């Protein structure tokens, strides 16, 4: 195979934001996650947990609560507004001020007609969900103290509200409080005077109310009589969140210690009817507070301050020892935050609020493996306005830089000077006048000759603009024959003839030919057009690889062979999606793929791995002689010594750029977790 010069980069200080709240839509199997920076991410649980959509947040807009109403998504935050999102165009659709101070929680009734919001001023505000907006209906009787948590009874007739030191039950019809459940203050903490916060309540159909509070208790109440049935003391710290399984037989509670505790509604013996809530399992998947929980039919999904999304299947609900029963940790975004200018050797790192531009260093060129060379210069592009950056792109020549927020696009002309001393900072000029079509954009890309800018826009259209000498001119809009889902991948071909796009509906369109690739069930996670053979390689969330010949308009023989034989089980078992496909111009049969844990060169000439062949065979091959090596090698050459990869790309000089983000660095930037005694000393 040969040697590669690798630029191994570990200075991209990408810091995922803490998970604040989650909501699961069991009909569409979509999980929505809101992070502390206000970004809202949508994961498709039916498609290998692929992160389909990301709506960036904005400054001062912290999302405190999320709620699905049918297929519509609402959020509320401490800015006091309720926002509905436009999931087709990846931006807020409309916002409405609730006039109750910061909103701590929102919850919709099971019919999806009403939305209740718990506010700082002690009111529960009811909003009617209309076709295109929500409309204020009335206030429930006003209480003293903020409303922290809300839960509807499944029939919609009552609503339970968690407050300070108490839980109130309201009649949804009359708006009056019918019960007041007093939650006692912490027993263990010294500050007995400190009020207890009911962080979460759950109202079950048999009128049982379950609450989790800041004194570390999970309490079970009888909602009809308003009496306390049972108290489980979980932790010295807070129980921050509760989630109920769809069949109401199991409840999970997330604590500040990073544990998730499961309670199940079971009887002590099989045939008896006297069921009670029994603490059964404890999961420890997090190092920090568990702030958000979802209980699906088969799994516990948790997230929190340590920024990881953890999906842990319940072993009594899934078959053991299958892929379904494996625990998933999603740490990095499923899209590219790094763009490389292949010709100029520049890297662009995208953060939520700024961009960084770096130039690759030079090695002394005699194969010295550990030569450190300083980066020549870097550039920070500040952000204008309050919105967070949603996408960015660097042209291959390194002359252009573009980024977009939800509301605007910015384009810069970079003036590079390679001849003079390398430490001179790059100068940049902003292109001030942009065509008006470029306003709402969720993906950007430059053509390989850096003369055109492609931008995916509303209604899954793609806008083409030419860029030249501080000028940007609108050329054309490509409209796909079908599809309303947003385009999340853009890949222009090397010769500039074609542009491949993929949207979250799973469709791939190739423009200039106006051909569509047959839709496969899974969403594409990376697409690219081969520079010589003009075939489109797409990798999907279910880890399948397809190669579609754009000339013959059919899947190539290799792709068919791969489908016929099937991927190797170990390839399918990987849990991170492939986020980039690149090609090696030196060797047209090589396809370079990477996910967060490995990069892989697929050699189309070599035989495909059989089910029984050793898949990760690099170390074996290394110890073999040349002839043996040829006989034992297979098409998938997986290199796993680089971990936590955010980008692997091939530059024009055939050196590899590898951007790593060690997990330890992320952990070291997290706040300190709650203190726990480890040893009984």
């Amino acid at each position: 195979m040969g040697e590669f010069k690798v630029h191994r980069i570990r200075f991209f200080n990408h810091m995922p934001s803490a998970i604040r709240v989650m909501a699961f839509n069991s009909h569409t199997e979509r999980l929505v996650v809101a992070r502390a920076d206000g970004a809202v991410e949508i994961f498709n649980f039916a498609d290998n947990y692929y992160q389909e959509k990301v709506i960036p947040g904005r400054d001062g807009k912290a999302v405190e609560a999320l709620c699905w109403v049918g297929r519509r998504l609402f959020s509320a935050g401490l800015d006091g507004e309720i926002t509905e999102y436009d999931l087709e165009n990846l931006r807020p659709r409309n916002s409405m001020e609730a006039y109750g101070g910061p909103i701590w929680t929102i919850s919709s009734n099971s019919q999806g007609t009403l939305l209740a919001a718990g506010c700082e001023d002690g009111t529960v505000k009811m909003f009617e969900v209309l076709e295109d907006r929500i409309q204020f209906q009335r206030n429930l009787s006003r209480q003293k103290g903020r409303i922290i948590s809300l839960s509807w009874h499944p029939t919609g007739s009552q609503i339970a509200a968690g407050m300070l030191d108490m839980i109130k039950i309201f009649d949804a019809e009359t708006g009056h409080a019918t019960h007041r459940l007093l939650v006692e203050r912490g027993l263990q903490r010294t500050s007995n005077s400190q009020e207890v916060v009911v962080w979460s309540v759950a109202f079950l159909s048999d009128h049982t109310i379950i609450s989790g509070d800041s004194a570390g208790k999970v309490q079970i109440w009888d909602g009809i009589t308003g009496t306390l049935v049972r108290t489980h003391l979980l932790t010295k710290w807070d129980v921050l969140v509760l989630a109920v399984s769809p069949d109401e037989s199991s409840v999970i509670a997330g604590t500040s210690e990073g544990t998730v505790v499961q309670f199940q509604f079971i009887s002590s013996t099989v045939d008896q009817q006297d069921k009670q809530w029994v603490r059964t399992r404890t999961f420890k998947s997090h190092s920090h507070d568990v702030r958000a929980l979802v209980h699906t039919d088969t799994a516990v999904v948790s997230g929190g301050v340590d920024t990881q999304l953890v999906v842990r299947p319940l072993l009594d609900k899934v078959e053991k020892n299958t892929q379904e029963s494996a625990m998933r940790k999603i740490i990095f975004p499923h899209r590219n935050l790094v763009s490389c200018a292949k010709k100029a050797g520049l890297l662009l790192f995208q953060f939520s609020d700024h961009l960084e531009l770096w130039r690759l260093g030079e090695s002394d060129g005699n194969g010295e493996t550990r030569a450190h060379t300083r980066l020549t210069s870097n550039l920070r592009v500040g952000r204008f306005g309050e919105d967070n950056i949603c996408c960015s792109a660097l042209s291959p020549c390194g002359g252009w830089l573009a980024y977009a927020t939800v509301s605007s696009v910015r384009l810069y002309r970079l003036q590079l000077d390679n001849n003079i001393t390398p430490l001179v900072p790059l100068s940049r000029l902003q292109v001030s006048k942009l065509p008006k079509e470029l306003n709402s954009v969720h993906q950007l890309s430059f053509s390989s000759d850096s003369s055109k800018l492609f931008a995916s826009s509303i209604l899954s259209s793609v806008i083409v603009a030419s860029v030249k000498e501080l000028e940007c001119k609108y050329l054309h809009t490509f409209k796909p024959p079908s599809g309303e889902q947003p385009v999340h991948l853009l890949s222009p071909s090397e010769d500039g003839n074609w542009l491949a796009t993929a949207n979250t509906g799973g469709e791939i369109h190739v423009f200039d030919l106006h051909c569509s690739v047959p839709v496969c069930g899974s969403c594409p996670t990376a697409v690219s057009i081969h520079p010589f053979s003009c075939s489109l390689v797409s990798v999907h969330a279910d880890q399948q690889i397809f190669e579609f010949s754009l000339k013959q308009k059919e899947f190539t023989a290799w792709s068919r062979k791969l489908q016929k034989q099937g991927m190797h089980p170990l390839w399918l078992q990987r849990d991170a999606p492939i986020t980039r496909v690149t090609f090696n111009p030196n060797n047209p049969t090589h396809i370079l793929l990477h996910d967060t844990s490995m990069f892989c060169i697929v050699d189309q000439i070599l035989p495909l791995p059989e089910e029984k062949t050793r898949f990760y065979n690099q170390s074996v091959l290394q110890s073999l002689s040349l002839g043996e090596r040829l006989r034992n090698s297979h098409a998938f050459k997986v290199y796993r010594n680089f971990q936590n990869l955010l980008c692997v790309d091939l530059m024009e000089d055939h050196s590899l750029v590898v951007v790593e983000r060690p997990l330890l660095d992320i952990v070291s930037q997290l706040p300190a977790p709650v203190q726990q005694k480890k040893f009984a000393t």
Partner: protein
Amino acid sequence: MAALCEGYTLCGLVPAQNRLCSGLRGIEEERDSDHVIVTESTRCATLYKVSDQKPLSSWTVKQGQSLTSSAVFNTKTSEYVAVSDNKVIRIWKEEDILLDKAFKATVSADVWMVHCPRGGEPVVLFQRGDVRLLDSLLAAPHQPVQEVLAQEESIRWSTSIVTEMQQMVIFTTELKGDHFLCLQRLNPNSLQRYHLEREEPGLSPLSFSTSYRDKHICLLYLYPNGHVYESLISVRGSGAGEGSEALSLPRSLILSLPVGDDLLEAAAAVVLDDAHVAVVGVPHPCAGPGKDFLCIWNTNFQTLQAGKEMAGKLYGQLWSYSNKLFIPHGKTLSVIPFACPKSCLASALGKLKQARAEDSRPPALVPSWNNILHGEKHQPPKTAEIRKTVSWITDEDMCLLQTASAEEVKKEVEGLLTRQDVQDLQLSLGQLAVTLVSRSLAEPAFYTPSTLQQLVHTQCLCHSICPDLVALALEKKDYFLCQLCLQFFPDIPEVITCACLKAFISLPDADAERLSLEPDGVSFMQILISREHDQVGLQNGFTSTSCEDEDAGSGQQRRRKDEENARNPPEPVCPVGVHKAALINEVLQAAYSDTFLLPHLKDLSSQHVILFLQYLQFLYQQYSLEAFPQKHSFRSPSQNQVSWIGFACCWMLKAYCRTFTDLLIESSSCVQVKLFLQLGKIESSLQQINEMKVKEDVGAYSIEVIELF
């Protein structure tokens, strides 16, 4: 948690003269759960109302006659059926007072038992194995009866059950020490024979019990050595192969009861539900050697749930009807109500669900390990039974393995290995290996290293199949075979792993280099050590040796070099040879649990410990060098493995610390001083690793060259 309630006496008993037999022939349920009919082994059958502890009526046959089958109650006709003098079937109703005046019919052959399960019809099981429905038998009482069983075969136990589809009679037979289970289906009739696996020689099952659940008959049987086995038989079964050949019945050991010193004589086990078994005549694990206990065991969790001491002798008889146990003891028949609530926690935790999913699968009828292995262990030369299952190893082969010279055996095994048509490869190979190893142990002159290596290389063996193999290899100093075993056996016990370690460490380096070993491990070590030499030559990018040559005399240079050395500790030198290191690596990679390993590690002598620690230290330092991970090969211990065993060592030394200090005070031997020195070095190298990690993160950018193959 199951519980035994306070019992009460149902009736007195008249035990036989020798007090071995309770004098009870059987107890059958009558019209409801509160009525039972008790048949004595002499002449009398009595109907009791259990809750009142009172006989309702009693029937006796004439003097000189005796009841030879326990009376059963036919719920459909409200009639009682019993057999007297083996051939006379008697049928009467409750209002009949005198048995002699009731209906009787003489049949042509001896009857073993009449069964009438609830919801079924009465069936008659003849002593020779034929089964007839009572109605059809009475239509022509003298009809000829078939000889189903072989000449010397006799029935030991029988029962009848009704499933959704049909009624069936189950009985077990014994033929020359072999036990069989016969499953006779009625309407349409079909007979299936199963062969029960042999327990230790001379042991026959003491009691049987059946239950029916999830379309499977569950047969539970107790052996005198306290083993309780369970076999599942699908009621659908295979119509083919009917009657022709006895299938082997797979079994699983569900309980191993404590039996004390001698074997059980009069004991019985009865299924209560799918998780509980009642046992009589087995000692209570917490209460001395007496066997007069009634216990309930939970088979899911292997726990004793309830126990009760019974007054008087137990006869190994136990019946269970609707939450009541009937147990004859001493001179009384007692009734003991019990409760077996099903635990819900298990189902909540997903334990029951998995178990159930496995249960519902029909058990595959394959020969089990026990048959081959345990049978073999106790009587190594006897192969008759094995030949049945391991069909491809013929008599001649076995003979040859036992007697032929090493070369012939080698050829023979090679021949066998090349055959493609082998079905139970693991069984057969295990069989081969066991034979070879036992012969090698018996005859010191006989040893076939290459053949054993070949067998191990098939990866079909494991330590449990052939437990003496590693010991044999150690004894014969066949370290290559040891290496292979360590690589391929997942289940080597820690004591053997440690014995290997000891042998490897004490092996002189010169001898070790002469060994031919598995090349992968050796090449890994070569890379590691050659790297080490390179590093010495090319420290920090310049050749220190050439510097030294130029300015050998310059004190300043030397001082600078010393300073440098003080800053960067000198490169370690591998304390053992390549081959020896490769062997030790295999030990490091073997599966072990540190709690079990520790006691054996303590057996190492202090010189060996020092050498071992030095080697571990060397590995540490090699691993902690940054560029190292790319040189990993397939057979290289991971850093974790190295650190684990290192910690284990430290732990062990800590445990011995006091002894060592004592030793130090007494002898001030320099060996112990060295030992502590090494410990200190390990500690510092551990710290170095941590520091290096931090350094790695600081270096946020590097240009490297990697190679893909």
